[in-house]
């Protein structure tokens, strides 16, 4: 496991496989290092603002970065050059997540969550609703559940395929916290996809699981496929 912090250090915690990895920094540069020799291989520069999220893929594009300059860049790891720049977002892109089985990825920002097709980064569609909050992080499940966490503590659950939000949830700040301290900064599904772990602004890490007592009668999902999907 690799971790990087504001003390400008990258620490490797368990060196089982020597892999190359990229690091997104608060600066606008992404660096690619060889872990064994600690040599910097590539400096992926090109973004004009903070790089907020990074994804690694097994095939081209092997690195996908999202930045506060509203762009997503797809990189070629062999040469360290940008393959493509996606300028679909209107606001800073803060979260990226790749679907485990499909060759697609989703990006989220304050304006929208958009789905893209790999390997060329073709735009597929927006989600059907807008969360209207500053989305900080995204995570997706093998079951096709996309979760987005926002700065105001709202967690929205989306269906990956259709882009419909079927559940809206608000986190509860832990006792002793202010109401304004509801916010989610990072989230991830575990390997099984059954538990969602969120890192929040009230200094808690929360784990969420599926509510098995919910039935279509108790929690109805009203989904009508729209005639025209939103284009902006």
């Amino acid at each position, binding site marked *: 496991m690799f971790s990087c912090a504001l003390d400008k250090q990258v620490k490797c915690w368990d060196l089982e496989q020597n892999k190359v990895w990229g690091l997104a920094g608060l600066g606008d540069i992404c660096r690619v290092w060889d872990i064994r020799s600690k040599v910097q291989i590539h400096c992926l520069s090109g973004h004009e603002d903070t790089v907020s999220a990074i994804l690694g893929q*097994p*095939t081209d594009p092997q690195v996908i970065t999202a930045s506060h300059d509203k762009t997503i860049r797809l990189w070629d790891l062999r040469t360290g050059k940008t393959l493509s720049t996606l300028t679909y977002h209107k606001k800073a892109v803060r979260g990226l997540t790749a679907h485990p089985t499909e060759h697609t990825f989703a990006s989220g920002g304050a304006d929208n969550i958009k789905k893209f097709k790999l390997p060329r980064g073709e*735009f597929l569609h927006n989600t059907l609703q807008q969360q209207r909050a500053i989305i900080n992080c995204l995570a997706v499940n093998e079951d096709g559940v996309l979760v987005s966490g926002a700065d105001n503590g709202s967690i929205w659950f989306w269906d990956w395929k259709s882009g419909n939000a079927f559940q809206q949830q608000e986190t509860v700040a832990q006792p002793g916290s202010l109401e304004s301290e509801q916010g989610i900064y990072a989230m991830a599904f575990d390997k099984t996809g059954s538990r969602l772990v969120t890192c929040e602004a009230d200094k808690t890490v929360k784990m969420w699981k599926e509510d098995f007592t919910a039935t279509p009668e108790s929690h109805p999902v009203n989904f009508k496929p729209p005639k025209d999907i939103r284009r902006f």
Partner: protein
Amino acid sequence: MSLLASLPAPVKTYTAPDAPAPTGPSGEETRRPVKEVPPYGRRQGFVPRRVDDYGGGGAFPEIHVAQYPLEMGRPNQRPGGAGRTDQTVALSVNAEGEVNYDAVVRQGKDAQKWVATTHAALVPKLEQLNSDMPRPDEEEVEAAAKETAAALQAVVSRKQAAVNPKTLPSQPGAPQYIKYTPAQSGGAHNSGAATRIIKMQDMPVDPMEPPKFRHIKVPRGPGSPPVPVMHSPPRALTVQDQADWKIPPCISNWKNSKGYTIPLDKRLAADGRGLQEVQINDQFAKFTEALYIAEQKARASRGPGRSAAAAPSSPESEAERELPAAHRVRDGPAAEGETRAEREERRQRDEIREERRRERERERRLEARDAHGHKRSKLTRDRDRDISEKIALGQAKVSGGEAMYDQRLFNQDTGVGSGLASEDAYNLYDKPLFADRSEVFRSRGRQDEEVHGAGAGGDDAAGERRFKPDKGFSGVDYGAARDAAAGPVQFEADAAQADVFGLDAFLTDVRGGKRREGPLGDAPRGGSMAAAGGGGGGGGGGDGGRRMDFVGASGSKQR
């Protein structure tokens, strides 16, 4: 053709750009005929315009026309040329017949390999949702991994080799010998030899030399061509949005660095006074309820009769009874039966009393001020107190303005020789802890013995003999003084003075010699005397009976 003939002749003639020579499948059989260049001296009117006109040679200096043999140096050349005067991209058309507006973005072979430039890229594609978009399979992944690993490894090894001392070439390098065959051979070149051998050697490097070149930061290159923005321009802010995000300037309760004058209502606005509701806990209400209930119960348990007696007979009489009490409270102690004149007098007296009290207080304050020039505050009131005791005990906080010396510095017994003892001499305590007071009341004997030394008898330098009397006093025991007693002076109790009033003797007589209680009960008889004023010793012998002695201390205690 007839139509063409009927049209008027064109005014301007255009020259088509040079088309590349068609490379035929035949190689050397069909060769283009080499144009013959006119020899020197016969070139009047000759202007070379095409590559063929040069005949494989160079430009003709005597022809004053811009010439570009082999198309070298032409300013309008594509990348690599020295001067690009126009930066235009040729307009091209794609297969559907639409103009390629994204030719600008797609310049350069690998700049922006995959660019989204058309409106079709913006449109949401819902039909693709149901199509299967599988991830690349294992083979592709492995192939990609191998290629990537190889590429990255090459970079890493290159970087490491630059640093690795073993791979670096030694300075200066060994000489290299190169065999060179020049293109022009002949008797004139190279003194007839066909080949030359050239020795290449590195210049020896002076290790102590400072670096020759400055590292200058090179400005960044132009970067990749701009990417089309695939979203509509951001919507204008609505008034509601602007109002939502409006943040009032911070007015601090503590700091005002620019010194702004801020009206009071603005100062209080952000205080949060009106924003918080005072929340009263529910349990207050519960508490009062519980108290009320308990009181009721207590009243009930006390019995009905008592409460009936306590209650007034009628509500009117209660009101009547309350009235004079209210008047009393309002008018002071003597409200009943007092005339107005008396009340006036009383008021005047009270005023006079108040005045006098105020005057006394003022005088007290002025006194305090006069005594010290100012009114003593808490900090200054202790200034004039004598704290010599505290200093002696080491408890005083002495704040000295002028130079103050520690009194322990003066009159010290040790003197200069205090530092001359050996290192391990334990001389921290040179004096015993307690002063030996046993010497205080030692009988001194005669003064002149002390003054002139112990051997006064022999030493008579000043002739003191004549001042000593011939005859001493009678009754004085001079021997006792000479043998100076070891301890303090001992006083002897006068046995004759033990029973002054003869009470003991009286009592023993009365009871017939039996030893009985005296009037003092069980008090011990014969009080001991520590000192009898005027009793011990001779004193005058005149007063026989009138002698006052004190009763023993123990006797008085019993009472």
